[in-house]
C-alpha cells in the first residue's frame, strides 16, 4: 500500500520535474515526444491502428501532457491553448465511451464558449507571463502541493486498483440509443426536469452576477 502511494508520488513529482526541465522553453518538444511515441508504436505494430486501446492511450497521453503544460507554463495564453487541447482529448474520450452528444457539447460549451471567454479575458487584460513560478509565495507551498498531489494520486490509484476486476467492454456493444441527444433529452425532461430548470436558473443568476460584477460602475 505505502509503496503504491510512494509510487504515485514519485510518478507525479518526476513528471513535473521532466516537464519543468523541458517546458516552457521547448513546448514543441513535448508534442514531438508524443508523436514519436505514437509513430514508434505504429511502426512496431500496424494493427494497433485499428484498436481502441492505441487511440485511447495516445489521447490519454496527450491529455496528461497538456494538463501538465497548463500548470507548468508561465504564460496564461499558452495555458489556455493547452487547456483547449486537453478538452479536445476529453471530448475524444467521450467519443470512445459512446457519448457522442457529450463530446459535441463538450466542444461547443467548453471549447466554443468557456475557453473563448478565457481567451478573451486574457487578451483583454493583456496578461504577460507570470514572473517565474518561483517568485514569492514560498517554495514550501509548491513543494507541499506537489507532495500532497502525489499522495492524493497514490490514494486514487489505490482506490481504483481496489475496485476489483471489472469485465472488459467493447465500445460497439451497446443499445443504439446510448449517448445520443434524444436519450439524454428524454432523461433531462422527465426524471431530471427539476434539476434542469434549476440549472437554467443557475445560468441566469450567473449571467446577471457576471454583468453586475464586470460593469465598470453601476449606473
Amino acid at each position: 500500500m505505502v509503496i503504491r502511494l510512494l509510487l504515485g508520488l514519485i510518478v507525479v513529482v518526476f513528471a513535473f520535474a521532466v516537464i519543468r526541465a523541458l517546458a516552457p522553453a521547448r513546448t514543441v518538444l513535448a508534442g514531438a515526444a508524443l508523436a514519436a511515441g505514437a509513430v514508434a508504436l505504429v511502426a512496431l505494430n500496424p494493427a494497433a491502428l485499428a484498436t481502441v486501446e492505441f487511440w485511447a492511450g495516445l489521447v490519454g497521453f496527450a491529455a496528461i501532457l497538456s494538463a501538465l503544460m497548463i500548470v507548468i507554463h508561465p504564460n496564461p495564453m499558452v495555458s489556455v491553448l493547452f487547456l483547449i487541447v486537453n478538452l479536445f482529448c476529453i471530448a475524444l474520450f467521450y467519443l470512445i465511451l459512446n457519448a457522442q452528444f457529450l463530446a459535441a457539447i463538450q466542444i461547443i460549451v467548453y471549447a466554443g464558449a468557456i475557453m473563448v471567454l478565457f481567451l478573451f479575458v486574457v487578451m483583454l487584460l493583456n496578461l504577460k507571463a507570470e514572473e517565474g513560478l518561483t517568485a514569492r509565495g514560498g517554495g514550501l507551498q509548491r513543494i507541499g502541493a506537489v507532495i500532497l498531489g502525489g499522495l492524493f494520486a497514490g490514494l486514487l490509484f489505490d482506490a481504483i486498483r481496489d475496485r476489483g476486476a471489472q469485465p472488459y467492454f467493447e465500445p460497439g456493444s451497446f443499445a443504439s440509443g446510448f449517448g445520443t441527444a434524444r436519450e439524454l433529452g428524454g432523461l433531462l425532461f422527465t426524471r431530471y426536469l427539476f434539476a434542469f430548470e434549476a440549472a437554467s436558473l443557475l445560468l441566469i443568476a450567473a449571467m446577471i452576477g457576471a454583468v453586475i460584477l464586470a460593469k465598470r460602475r453601476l449606473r
Partner: protein
Amino acid sequence: MLQLLWLIPLLPLAGFAANGLLGARLLPRRIVALVGCGSVLAAFVLSAGAVRELAGGRFTQPLFEWLPMGQTPGGSDLTVSWGYALDPLSAVMILVVTGIGFLIHVYSIGYMEHEPRAGFARFFAYLNLFMAMMLTLVLGSSLPVVFVGWEGVGLCSYLLIGFWYDRMFDEKAKMSCADAGRKAFLTNRVGDVGFVLGMLILFGATGTLDIQGILEGAGSIDPWWCGAAALLLFLGACGKSAQIPLYVWLPDAMAGPTPVSALIHAATMVTAGVYVTCRMAPLYLHAPGAMLIVAVVGGLTALFAAIIGIAQDDIKKVLAYSTVSQLGYMMLAAGAGAFTASVFHLMTHAFFKALLFLGAGSVIHAMAGEQDIRRMGGLRRHLPITHATFLVAVLAIAGIPPFAGFFSKDEILAGVLEMGGESGSPVALALWGLGILTAAITAFYMTRLYLLVFAGAPRMPEEKRHHLHESPAVMTLPLVVLAVGSALAGFLGVPEFIGGLPNYLEHYLAPIFAVSGHAAALTEQTQGGAALSEGTALGIALFASLAGIASAWAVYRRGPLAAGPGAAGPRGLTRLVKGRFYVDEAIDAVVLAPYRGLCRVAAAFDERIVDRLVNSVGAAADLASQLGRLAQTGYVRNYALVFFLGTIVVLVFVVLR
C-alpha cells in the same frame, strides 16, 4: 386638620421638587423665595392646626405598607408601614422646626441675595428638602421612617455645608467646604451604624419597628439587650447631636452659609439625637446603666465644648462650640431622666441659638464676610437691631432671668439633682457640678463674644467701617421675632416652686414621659426630693452665670488686646484649649492613620496582584491570538493547501479503511 398630617412633610418636599427642578432655569428669585418660604409657612400653619386639634392626645396615621416582610413563625406581623404619628413630643418638635425654619427661610432671602440665581434656587431647594426630612424624622411612626428622615437631614446637612463647594473653608488645615461637608457626613455615618444596629436589636427583640409597639414591649426585653439597644441608639444620637467623641464635625459644619448653621446645626437637626433619646425614653428608663452613660457623656461634652468655646476667635466657631455644649446639656438632662427639661431646653435653645446665629450672620453680612471677632468691636452703633437682639440671646443663653435659658437650664440642673435623690449620689452631684461649671463658662464666653463684637472700640480697617450697615428688614424681622421668642419661651416651663405660672410644658408632655409602670416607679423614687432645695440650687446656678459674666467683663471690657491668655502667644493650657484639645488630630492619628495605611495596603494588593492577574489573562489571550494569527497568511493558496491536506486525510480514512 389632623387628617392632613401627611401633608406637613409633603409640602416642603413639593417645594424642593419645584425649586430643585425648575428654580435654576425657569423661576425668578422672587418665585423661588416665595415657594421656599410659602411651603414651610403652610407646613407651619398645618402643624399649628394639627397640634391644636390634637389637644395632648396621640394620633397615628398609617399611610401605606412600605416594607412587607411577612410574618414571624410566632405569627406577629413584620410589615413596616409608612406612617406618621403626632403626640405632644413631636407636636413641640414640629412647631419648633417649622416655626423657626420659616423664620430662617425668610432670613435667608436677605442673606443669600448676592448668590447667583442658580445657587439661590439650589439653596432654597436644599432647605426645603431639609424641612421635609426633618419633619419626616419627627413625625415618623416607626423607626425606619425616622431613619429615613435621619439620613435625609444628614444628606441635607452635607449638601448645605458643602454649599460653597468651590470655596476654601479653613486655610490652615487646607480644608475646603466640600471637605467639611464630607467630614460631617462620614462622622454621622459612624453614629448611624449604631442607630441601625440598635434598630435591628429592637426589631429582633420586639418583632416590630413601630415605635409605639417597641415602647410598649420595652418592659419585656432582656435588660442586656435593652441596654445594648439604648446605647447603640445613643451612639447614633451622639453622631447627630455632636456628643463626645463624635462632635468634631459640628465646628467645621460652620463652612455652610450662616442660616444653615442656624437652622440645621443649631436649632433643629442637631437636636434630632436628643429628640430620639427622649422619644425612646421608656426604653432608657428600662436601662439605667445606659442612662447613666448618657448623662455622663452629656455632662462631659457640655463642659469640654464650653472650655474650647472660650478660646475661639471665629464668631461662628464660638457659637458652634456653645451649641455642642448646650446639646451636651440636653443629653445630660435626658440621661438624668428629666426628659421634659431636655425637651424644654431643646426648645429654648432652638430659639436663642438660632437668634445668635442669625445675629452673627447679620454681623458677618455687615462685615462683608469677616468672621474673626478680633477684628470687630463697636458694632453697637452700626447694627442697633442686631445688637439688641443679640444681647437678648446672650442673656438667654447665659441663664439670666427672665430669659428662656434661665428656666430651661435651671430645670435641667434640678433634674440632675433629683436623679441623685435624697442622699445625693456622688455621681449625680458631680454631674450637677459639671452643669454649674458649664453654666459659668458659658456665661463667660458668651459675654466675651458679645463684648468683642459689639462693645469697645472698632478694630476693623477704615474702609470696612464705611461699609457697615444694618441688615435689611427681611433679615432683621426674624431676629426680632426670635428675640421675643427667646425672651418669653421660658415662661412655658416655670418651675412649680416659683409659682405664678403653671408648668405648661411639663403637663403637656406628661403623658409621654409617664408611660410604663416601671418608669413611673422610677420617677416616683426621684420625685422624693433632692440633696439641695430647689431654691438653693437655683441660686447657685444664677450666681455661677453672673460670675461668668462678671469675669468676662473684667477681662474683655477693653477688648482682646488687654486679654491675658488671649493676647500673648498661647501657652500651656491656653494653647491646648486654642488647639481644641487637638481632638481632631488625635482622631486623625488613632483612627484615620491606620485606616489610610490599610487602604494603601489594599490598593497595593489591588494593583500588584488583582490587576496583574486580570491583565495577565488579557495578555494570555493576546499572545494566543498573536500565535494564531500566524496561520492567517491571507494567501488563499495556503488555505487551499490546508484544505487539500484535510481532503487527503479524509480520503485516507475512506480508502485505507
